[in-house]
């Protein structure tokens, strides 16, 4: 193929030889990332489906469980994640413009916000532990039955709400931890100057992942915290 019209020597080392040009390489990476996110939608989708079925079946217990988790911590955590999505979006922009220092600062800010989210989440989980709302032998929802005497609360059904609460927030937190690992990696190479306006695909792909995890939380917040906050009387 010595008479190939593509002069391989003319492009930088960031372009892999099986792609025609940088744009094709980026589009391929982007498509692959979106396909992965599609599988993630299915991954979370199964749990959302379980949530929907049990919420439909045991609405009273879900409403009471939802009232017992701290709406302030939930709202603050939503805001923290939205701020981290902003820093990621600005980080991708900084990479597009080749501003290395700004990119590193924004990635570090994202990591700090990610840890803040997990910290607040930990406080929330600890509250549930103290209230004995963790499903299992020590589970006890008598406090909820006492707080809402108007509605019948079945202990077993209440455990289903908290099982889903811990499974969904736990799976989300696991994604956050993986995301933080990715961002530590990206920050290191951004600091090393690997990403340029010609090649910033890993930053963009890491950003897509982070935004996806943000979107999962955008749905978890109303579904877990805001089921029924209306005054009872």
């Amino acid at each position, binding site marked *: 193929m010595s008479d190939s019209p593509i002069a391989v020597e003319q492009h930088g080392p960031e372009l892999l030889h099986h792609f025609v040009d940088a744009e094709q390489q980026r589009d391929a990476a982007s498509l692959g990332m979106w396909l992965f996110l599609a599988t993630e939608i299915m991954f979370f989708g199964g749990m959302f489906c379980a949530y929907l079925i049990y919420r439909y079946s045991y609405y009273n217990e879900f409403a009471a469980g939802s009232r017992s988790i701290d709406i302030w911590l939930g709202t603050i955590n939503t805001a923290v994640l939205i701020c981290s999505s902003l820093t990621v979006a600005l980080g991708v922009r900084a990479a597009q413009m080749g501003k290395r220092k700004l990119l590193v600062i924004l990635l570090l800010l994202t990591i700090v916000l990610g840890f803040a989210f997990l910290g607040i989440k930990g406080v929330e989980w600890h509250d549930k532990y103290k209230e004995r709302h963790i499903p299992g032998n020590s589970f006890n929802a008598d406090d909820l039955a006492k707080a809402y005497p108007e509605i019948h609360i079945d202990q077993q059904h209440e455990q289903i709400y908290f099982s889903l609460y811990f499974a969904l927030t736990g799976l989300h937190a696991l994604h956050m931890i993986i995301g933080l690992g990715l961002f530590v990696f990206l920050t290191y190479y951004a600091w090393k100057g690997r990403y340029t306006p010609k090649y910033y695909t890993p930053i963009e792909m890491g950003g897509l992942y982070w935004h996806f995890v943000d979107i999962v939380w955008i749905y978890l917040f109303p579904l877990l915290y805001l089921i*029924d906050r209306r005054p009872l009387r």
Partner: protein
Amino acid sequence: MSEHIMSSKFYYAIWIALLCLTVITAAVSFVNLGPFNTVIALVIATSKALLVVLFFMHVKYTSEKLTKTVIVAAVFWLLLLLALSMADYTTRLLS
């Protein structure tokens, strides 16, 4: 994916909109609107998700139609899962 570089002001505007919607959805949940509480919560969540997907994830500016197809297909598949499951459970007699 696009080469399109948006101004930082634009990103700040999306950010403010997302924060406002978060406060609104939390506040509205305390008002008794009957079944519309859930509807409003989901409409606001979907609006926020759309803002993130279209602008933070640059889907609005992507030239790649295949990417958009994958996203639409994934969401459609999820809705199929939820709709058909609920079509089953809501028409059963739970003992």
